[in-house]
């Protein structure tokens, strides 16, 4: 299992366009991917899950994945967040 912590730096947080980009990216991998915020887990491949998390700018989230492509998945998602969703 791979996991990494990251702080949301873009203005909108995991919302609107960033949320759907995040879900689209996560859905490319076969690994099970979870996002944890404030001790609660959310499905990274679900737009409903990500939206209901309500993560805003400055929030700390943990991305963790389990499965064949887990490492790539976590790395790519982290870099998507760090690149501020190419806004």
């Amino acid at each position, binding site marked *: 299992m791979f996991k990494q912590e990251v702080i949301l730096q873009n203005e909108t947080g995991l919302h609107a366009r960033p949320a759907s980009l995040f879900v689209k990216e996560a859905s490319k991998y076969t690994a099970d991917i979870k996002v944890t915020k404030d001790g609660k887990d959310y*499905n990274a*491949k*679900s*737009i*409903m*899950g990500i*939206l*209901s998390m*309500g993560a805003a700018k400055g929030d700390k989230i943990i991305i963790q994945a389990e499965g064949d492509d887990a490492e790539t998945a976590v790395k790519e998602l982290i870099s998507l967040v760090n690149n501020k969703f190419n806004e």
Partner: protein
Amino acid sequence: MKGSGTSPGIAIGKIFLYKEPEIKVVKTQTEDPQLEIDRLNKAIEKSTNQIEELYERTLKTVGEKEAEIFTAHKMMLEDPEFIGGVREKIVNDKVNSEWAVKETADYYISLFENIDDEYLKERALDLKDVSKRLLKALLNIESGDLQSLSEKCIVIAEDLTPSDTAQMNKEMVVGFVTELGGKTSHTAIMARTLEIPSIAGVKDITNLVKNEDFIIIDGKKGDIIINPSEEEIKIYEAAKKEYEDFKTKLEEMKGKESVSRDGFKVEIAGNIGTPKDIDKVLENDGEGVGLFRTEFLYMDRDRLPSEEEQFEAYKIVAEKLKNKPLVIRTLDVGGDKDLPYLNLPKEMNPFLGYRAIRLCLDRTDIFRTQLRAILRASAFGNIKIMFPMISNLQEVRDAKAILEEVKEELRKENISFDNEVEIGIMVEIPAVAVHSDIFAKEVDFFSIGTNDLIQYTTAVDRGNQDISHLYNQYHPAVLKLIKMTIENGHKEGIWVGMCGEAAGDEKLIPLLLAMGLDEFSMSASSILKARWLIKNTSKKEVADMIDTILTLPTAEDVESFIDEKIL
């Protein structure tokens, strides 16, 4: 009866009362969850097909942006949490699919609705729409009503969802009345796109009318008459014809020059706030852009925009305008328009404070980057530069000196730009209007910013509701300043424009024309009307009345004089 008009126009005709079939979901236990899962899968498949069809249909009949919503709906039907949650509920609780769909959807809907966030509230509406569709598929409820409309009608409903309007036979719909919603709701936007009248917020209307009732709606005023008399129908038919004739007249204004009845030519341009606004200006045949507000580049973000980013934005607009003039106003923030990343101090009097050119001449790093971007873009069109909030001549000289330095830099770097780029100022502070004879010697044009000019002349905060009655563009003192500015500009041979709300005001246009204003810049939707008005006004006739108007005691006197003698 009355509601709030959300799309102008008048419609007269039969009612089509659209009532959603009631969806009743009862909880039942099942011994065979797999059977329920199969039912669910079939319903999802059916719903997905419907959504794809609606997407295609909307794409063809309305547009890509409107169709996009169905992509989001489809995503919800594929969502592992939502659909996964429904499946889990069926298996774990051994309940019927309908119940599982309703419970799961309700959970997310209330979750989204309870967060104070516009975006999530909209997603709650999408989810309602999607879950309703899924439930109808499960319960075999058909709702093809709006699709099979066969005669012209006015649709009356509690509310219309994107799915409802997408499947509607739009050729037969001549108007909408809804109980819910407002100017920004989906139905209102759709009505304006289709150019049919629409009224929202009419309480209980679905219970007050029945199919086959006759109705008149006025989408501008929000008036509704159910089963009108012969007399009323006659009146509204005449009004409808007048409105439609006027619309045709405006259409005919496209491609024409803006020349007064007695042969004086002016320029009618549009105001824009983002690069994409330019499309609306061109659609309405604007002769240029008299005000490009550049604040959008700086707001809703966490750092200053780069030169490259700005250059691209200015260049795209300049190119789309071909050789028509584009007046770019340099950064006008500070005071009430805050940029958090600049850490500007809180002020007691933000409108009189550290803002616009005052900020730019202090933070020359910001100013230089913007000027570089504008100058570089000037190689791609007919760009003019305008400085906002000028209050004394030294500011003009300082700004021009910095501009010269930036030009020199570009020359050294062999970057091309328009060396003759015109430099103008906003005339929005009374001191400048009064002293405009002197300012006119040092700039290439004036653009009168009436919103602030009125505010500063009358000392009325235009954002304060309690004193809004004192904010008045017909104030004789304001008109005197405008006239003085135009005359002083002309004495020095420079052109004078106006980019405030007043430039698009029907009552003021004849006056401004008579005072000699050269350029009128307004919101895109007012351009054709202004051209029509100018074509029907004699500059000389109104000019003869100007002196009389300027001696009138109050703004109210000015307004009624215009109503009686000019319009």
